[in-house]
């Protein structure tokens, strides 16, 4: 898709692994959000809407990376990094506001901190592939 000269595809080599990890998270966060929203939305609407938002961001990032949509991927992954930092910090400072876990609670502790590491890797990867000559 729409690769500019000098850019490497985001779907080859390590990029493919990144897409796989994002896919797993899109699935995990998405399923979790659907269950939470459909069965007990009233208990913690803010936390569950955040779960849904996080899931949507993972889906966008996965699709953008898989199709080589560099700009969209950058936006989604950047948003994801901000999200995990803000929600992670808030969930530690004000646990009462987050009665149930989201993917981003406590910087993604429930997911082995992968949600914190993933956007950093994603951004590094986008940078690297943008600079390298093709091939």
């Amino acid at each position, binding site marked *: 898709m729409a690769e500019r000269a000098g850019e490497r595809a985001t779907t080859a080599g390590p990029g493919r692994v990144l897409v796989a990890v994002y*896919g797993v998270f899109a699935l995990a966060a998405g*399923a979790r959000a659907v269950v939470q929203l459909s069965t007990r939305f009233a208990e913690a609407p803010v936390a569950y809407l955040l779960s849904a938002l996080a899931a949507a961001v993972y889906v966008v990032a996965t699709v953008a990376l898989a199709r080589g949509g560099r700009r969209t991927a950058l936006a989604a992954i950047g948003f994801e990094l901000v999200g995990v930092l803000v929600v992670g910090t808030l969930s530690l400072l004000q646990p009462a506001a987050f009665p149930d876990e989201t993917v981003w609670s406590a910087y993604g502790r429930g997911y082995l901190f992968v949600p914190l590491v993933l956007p950093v890797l994603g951004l590094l990867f986008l940078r690297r592939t943008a600079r390298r000559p093709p091939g």
Partner: protein
Amino acid sequence: MVAVTVTAVLLTLAGIASTLARRRIGLLHLAGAALLEALLLVQGGLAVVRLAQGETPADTPTFLGYLAGIVLLPVAGVLWARTEPTRWAGTVLAVAAGAVGVMIWRLQQLWEASGG
């Protein structure tokens, strides 16, 4: 359950090994993924039968969500890995298998927290 975990761990290691050895995935990986998928389908089938008999975990929707996700993972992993012509295919498969390894334990926890 134990068989699923062992297979998932072995497949993860095999995937990482082929990446480290700079090789593409081979028949071994595909066979491993097929075995994993077969075990998951058996496990999933048993769970569905017991659900139908009225034995329900406390959080049935979450349990079903995990169950649906876990049986899809090896298939998605293989499809995504097979179109990758480089050594990274192994890591792709390792990611899928690793996720299965984690999710099967989560499923077990959910099942044991029986609502009765």
